[in-house]
């Protein structure tokens, strides 16, 4: 089944590049494109309108956008109950911007240097409801959840299990999910479960460290 994608990104050249790469015939399986770009927008306002009218499966969302940034798009659509899932896509930005988009509800973050085939994999994974962690996002999350806190408000949410940390470290080292699974003698499904749990913690955690950490970086 073809995943319907909307691309929200303010650089026209980059949009054209992604469109060309995703339409590359060598990446089309069985005559049916795996991914199809059905709409584009260059700002928060346009993005919200396009996504509302098309209700795509996945939105590729730039972290930095004119009119409020990627997280503003997700926040504006929160009450629409769309089936749409968001994947943040950006040059490797400052950690707090990326974390803000993921905390707003994006299912993952990939850098713009990602290869076309990896991007298609990531889009399909997000469409199925899984989380997509690039090495850089894994590093950001490890950083944000590190450090000792006296007593987290909700230990269930405010800490990573050692297995989750292990998975994140392998992703940060550049392992694909499949390779992480092989290395830890687990199934890919289990790895996806761990990564989704980390994403949920990142989005729901009350851990004040997350905010403090982001603020601290913003001050730089």
């Amino acid at each position, binding site marked *: 089944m073809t995943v319907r994608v909307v691309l929200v990104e303010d650089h026209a050249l980059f949009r054209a590049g992604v469109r060309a790469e995703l339409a590359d015939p060598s990446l089309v399986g069985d005559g049916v494109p795996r991914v199809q770009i059905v709409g584009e927008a260059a700002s928060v306002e346009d993005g919200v309108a396009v996504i509302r009218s098309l209700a795509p499966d996945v939105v590729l969302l730039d972290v930095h956008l004119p009119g409020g940034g990627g997280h503003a798009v997700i926040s504006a659509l929160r009450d629409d109950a769309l089936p749409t899932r968001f994947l943040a896509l950006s*040059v*490797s*930005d*400052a950690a707090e911007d990326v974390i803000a988009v993921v905390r707003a509800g994006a299912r993952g973050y990939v*850098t713009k*240097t990602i290869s076309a085939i990896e991007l298609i994999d990531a889009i399909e994974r997000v469409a199925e409801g899984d989380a997509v962690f690039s*090495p*850089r996002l*894994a*590093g950001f999350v*490890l*950083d944000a959840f*590190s450090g000792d806190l006296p007593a987290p408000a909700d230990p269930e949410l405010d800490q990573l299990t050692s297995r989750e940390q292990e998975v994140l*470290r392998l992703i*940060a*080292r*550049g*392992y694909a999910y499949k390779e992480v699974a092989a290395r830890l003698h687990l199934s890919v499904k289990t790895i996806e479960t761990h990564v989704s749990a980390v994403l949920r913690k990142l989005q729901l955690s009350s851990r004040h460290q997350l905010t403090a950490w982001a603020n601290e*970086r913003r001050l*730089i």
Partner: protein
Amino acid sequence: MVALQALPRVPRSSDRVVAGVAGGWADRWGVEPTVVRAAIGLLTLAGGIGAVLYGVAALASAPAARNNPERLRRATNHRRHLAIACGTGAILVAARAMGLWPGDGIMFPAAAAAVGTAAAWMHGVVPKATSSNAWLPRFVQIVAGVTLLGAGVISLANRTGGLANVGTSTSAIAVVVGGLAMFGAPAFGRVLRSLDDERAMRIREDERASVAAHLHDSVLQSLVLMQRSDDPRRMASLARRQERELRAWLYDTQLVGEPASLHAAIEALAIEIETDHDVRVEAVVVGDQPLDAESRALVAAIREALVNAARHADVDQVDVFVEADDTELTGFVRDTGCGFDRAQIPADRRGISDSIVARVQRAGGTAVLTSKPGAGTEVELRVPRRAS
């Protein structure tokens, strides 16, 4: 102290004469600070009531909000000025009845001086460039205020001069200086503030000039180079190098000169390898620490591993992951390239054993190299942190 906590925590003002307390309350009430100051000064003469009020308010105040020197002053409300004047008058009448009174001969001229000061400064004398047709009432107001202040000061000087066969001159001088200070302090404060504004403006302009200079020297030059280049790989590497530099500059990661921290050193190393070897280096660093002997050894070993991967692995990208926690530094360099069998490496090729393994061992750590032909290579480095 319990009673103090019940008081509102009014922030002190950065526009201050003593501690900024009067300015803080003036902001809160939407009146001119000078009015509050004059009231406090006058009440201080009456048995020290003003000083006590000031002290209590200072103890209950919150620190000045430093980061917005250009805070918006609330619109002043003349009814509130009147309310403060009436309140002050009421307290003075009560003080007089209770005997907290240095004598009518001092208090009446002092009250005249206080009212004069407040009147003269209510709108400020350093005028904002607004409509000029409002100058006449202001002029009248200032003249009336100054006249009242002058009359008050002169009659006070007269009075004290009459009193004092002892140290006449000093007390007269004190009164005149006091009067001048009352008159001059707000003006001085305003001049200081406009100097501050000017300085802020100059800093902004300097900043803009330095941003422009930086963009010219870096981004523009790279763009020109890219336009002249025919080789897509060279263009990509130029772009990537520029992107990293720009980001480092934007987020203030130190890249110029000798890096000061492990994180900065790894970022600098990634740029260097990308530039020299035409390979993408995806570097992820968790935690950070200042560069010391151990972390330098780790960075040097990572450099060697990266160079090996770039030269021999036949890949577009190498991943680096470095983590610094309280007990050890770990580093991973991984490629998904051709891999190799270590047994097949000639004994005279010393790169791995000398530059990676031995170097890390000298720092008290371990290096493990995993590689399979066809399945890529990973170098795992661990260096314990010296207990500090």
